[in-house]
């Protein structure tokens, strides 16, 4: 047993590392326990075929600027090999649309659609700013004490400050679906399809599901430099970002132990007393912070018996069934996408030819099937970063939906069939993709659950939706990163403000712990 003043963080994902860095900077003794051989969880860069590397999370679009600065991530090795990707909506005939922060081009867009896009970006950016302003905020509780009321008041004021028309529009749109909003604004099916994908990536929802405007806004809410929602490709893959955060944490004095899976959280009466590793080693700690998802933390590592039944029930009811799969292709050369040159292939490519197509793809997963014609967000990061593939070779990294966590036939059987369905779709846009492919890896939500320990294989640990956001995230009575168990805190994506490599949950958790002491 070690010093009981120690703070233990279970899990070295980005939030665990950010939390460790802030606590260590404040002079705390922090130990991060990471189960696998590398920090970063699904954001770690892994070799999936000899010489070919990719990370599950593949784009950086939400990392908080304040965190980058405060943790000096660039001096710890963070660099971007390509900043501010544009989105290219792929068309089967090669007549694609390029979506930029302030304008859209190509694809036979009318002048009206182009003008409407500018207006759409204006209000969406403005609304996303409201969510963005909440990122580094410990969610206020709905009580009558002064601090919480002030925080709630500030939020209300921000909404009011939008001005009469925009406030009304936000209140109207905030809970509805992206399908309706896009229909109100645009004519072009390809443009609508591509924009709708931003609303459903990583979510158990289709464009017509309620809340999908909210998820689109959340995706745009990052306060990183550049346009709202702009994505970048970090050098060395997302693992590069993880190494930078881990570097900052280590430099501040945090101890990071890899290959140290935690078996259970130890209790002394009603307070935590430490953790026990799978190898039986016990580490004493008066504070345990879990970067694991909330369900795993409370029901598996702690045990439901150590919390009140109402709390256990709420944790058990968190919706966290992932339905995004991750495809990694090792390519012996650059494929030829119809109508795209090499430079364009380095952008963010999306397959979502119409909103209806996306909705149809979602229909399958409601009934435990994978999409017959999946949607995809594709990057070829090796165009910008040669370290990811052998010379002259390339890596294609794609988020593919929908792949339900619980496939009716089971994934053992379904995996090859789904891979085939994806390749069929890819082939319609890049006819030589099969010839170019020398190795394939498909990670289903089941694989991600097993490999990264995320319940349901859900990127965000818990579905991002209005009923699981702010003071409702992960569940009431633990929304301020503190669980009802004395000394047990949460810092993962299951907490406010949710997933995407952002770091705010880790930072906010650290601020709560420091304020409590």
């Amino acid at each position: 047993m070690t010093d009981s003043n120690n703070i233990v963080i279970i899990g070295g994902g980005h939030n665990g590392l950010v939390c460790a860095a802030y606590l260590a900077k404040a002079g705390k003794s922090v130990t991060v326990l990471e189960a696998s051989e590398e920090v970063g969880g699904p954001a770690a860069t892994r070799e999936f075929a000899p010489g070919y590397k990719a990370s599950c999370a593949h784009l950086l679009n939400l990392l908080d600027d304040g965190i980058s600065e405060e943790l000096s991530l660039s001096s710890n090795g963070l660099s971007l090999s390509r900043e501010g990707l544009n989105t290219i909506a792929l068309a089967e005939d090669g007549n694609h649309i390029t979506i930029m922060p302030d304008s859209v081009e190509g694809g036979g867009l009318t002048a009206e659609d182009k003008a409407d896009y500018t207006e759409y970006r204006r209000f969406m950016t403005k609304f996303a700013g409201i969510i963005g302003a909440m990122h580094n905020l410990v969610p206020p509780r709905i009580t009558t004490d002064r601090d919480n009321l002030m925080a709630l008041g500030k939020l209300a004021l921000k909404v009011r400050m939008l001005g009469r028309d925009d406030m009304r529009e936000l209140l109207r749109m905030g809970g509805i679906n992206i399908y309706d909003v896009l229909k109100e604004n645009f004519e072009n099916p390809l443009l609508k399809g591509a924009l709708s994908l931003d609303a459903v990536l990583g979510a158990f929802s289709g464009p017509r599901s309620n809340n999908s405007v909210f998820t689109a806004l959340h995706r745009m809410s990052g306060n990183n430099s550049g346009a709202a929602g702009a994505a970048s490709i970090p050098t060395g893959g997302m693992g590069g970002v993880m190494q930078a955060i881990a570097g900052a944490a280590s430099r501040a004095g945090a101890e990071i132990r890899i290959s140290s899976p935690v078996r259970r959280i130890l209790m002394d009466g009603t307070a935590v007393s430490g953790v026990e590793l799978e190898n039986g080693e016990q580490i004493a700690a008066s504070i345990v912070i879990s970067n694991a998802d909330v369900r795993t933390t409370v029901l598996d590592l702690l045990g439901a018996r150590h919390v009140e039944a109402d709390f256990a029930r709420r944790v058990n009811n968190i919706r966290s069934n992932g339905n995004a799969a991750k495809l990694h292709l090792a390519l012996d050369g650059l494929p030829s996408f119809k109508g795209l040159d090499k430079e364009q292939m380095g952008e963010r490519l999306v397959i979502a030819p119409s909103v209806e197509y996306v909705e149809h793809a979602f229909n399958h997963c409601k009934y435990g099937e994978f999409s017959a014609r999946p949607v995809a967000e594709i990057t070829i990061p090796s165009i910008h970063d040669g370290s990811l593939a052998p010379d002259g070779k390339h890596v294609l990294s794609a988020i593919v939906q929908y792949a339900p966590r619980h496939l009716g036939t089971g994934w053992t059987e379904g995996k090859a069939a789904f891979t085939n369905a994806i390749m069929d779709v890819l082939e319609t846009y890049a006819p030589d993709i099969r010839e170019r492919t020398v190795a394939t890896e498909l990670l289903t939500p089941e694989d991600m659950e097993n490999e990264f320990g995320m319940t349901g294989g859900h990127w965000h640990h818990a579905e991002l939706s209005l009923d699981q956001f702010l003071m409702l995230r992960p569940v009431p009575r633990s929304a301020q990163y503190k669980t009802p168990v004395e000394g047990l805190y949460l810092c993962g994506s299951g907490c406010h403000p949710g997933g995407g490599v952002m770091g705010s949950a880790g930072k906010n958790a650290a601020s709560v712990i420091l304020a409590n002491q």
Partner: protein
Amino acid sequence: MRTVDFSSSEHYKTAVFPSPFHSRQKEHNQLKEWSRWSDYLSVPAYWCADMEYFSGRNACGVFDITPMVKHLVTGPDALPYLNRLMTRDVSKIRPGRVGYSVWCNEAGRVIDDGTIFHLKEGVYRICSQEHQIDWFMTNTLGFDVEIVEDTHDVAGLAVQGPTSCAILKEMGLEGIENLTPFGLTYFDFEGTELMVSRTGFTGDLGYELFIDPDHAEVLWDRLFAAGELRGIRAMGSDALELLRIEAGFILAGVDFLPAMEAVRPTHTRSPFELGLGWLVSFDKGVFNGRQALLEEKEKGSRFNLVKLDIDGNKPGKDSFVYIKGGKKIAGTITSAMWSPSAKASIALASLEAPLGKPGEEFEVEIYYQRELKWSRVMASARVVKDVFWDPPRRRQTPPADF
């Protein structure tokens, strides 16, 4: 006999069942009035509620408790499960013992009260007023435990009053006189197992008998045959109501609002607010409501449930309780009666904290009727510490013979 048959697909057409004792209750029920208690027909009064009350106090009253909701809790985690569910430390209820407890939601408000029978090592029966299976099942997450509601598989009779022990002995329950209060034991009876506990809802010497429904009638017959010379009488729910108020026992839905039924959460009560702080064990680890109850302990409770001794002879049913002077309301009466044994108008009342310390004086506004003419009286009342009926024979082992 067994009167509930869930194997039939038509079972849902019956909402209220005759009790396994129904054939015998019918014979005794001179008034031919029936009421409903939970899933069963019950008898408010067989011949005269007041006389049945006196049977319970001076001889022996028999009350059908089959409708009480019963659950069987088994499995390796039965004890930790119950300790997280209940406010009291269940580990202190040894096998062969019975304990009274309440259980709370996370706001620390009482969902229901009931008795925990530690039937055999690790096997428990929970009796409650309200159906609890949903809440009990919700509580199983993370525990290796099995919960079965077996209300319909167990027939029960409360045998209460000074001659009860002698009657049971006469019936052949050898050694029953050695059973201590809150103890339970088993007998071979007519080829089946009869479980007897020294418990009850009357605050007097008394027992509760549990048997399979097919042996209900033979149990009734043997009991009444054995009690013929010792004043045994069937007793209805009206008489029981009088007995339990005298004993200071609270009733769900009357003296407190079960938390699961509340539309207005502020109308519910914590154990402290029901005078049941002694049932709350903070040092046993986590249990439902612990955090809220710790906070309440620090900040203070909102209500006190007290016993009132009211001047005059009029029961203060549904009355307001005023601070002396009759201007400011201190609370309301939840249960009230004229107590023939204490010779006093007595009541249970919920007063706003910190009001309600023993000896404090209040005024009770009583409306009463004499031959259809309504009158009102402001009667003085004081808070008393002890229950109105607590005879030494309640605790005496062995009880006096009759």
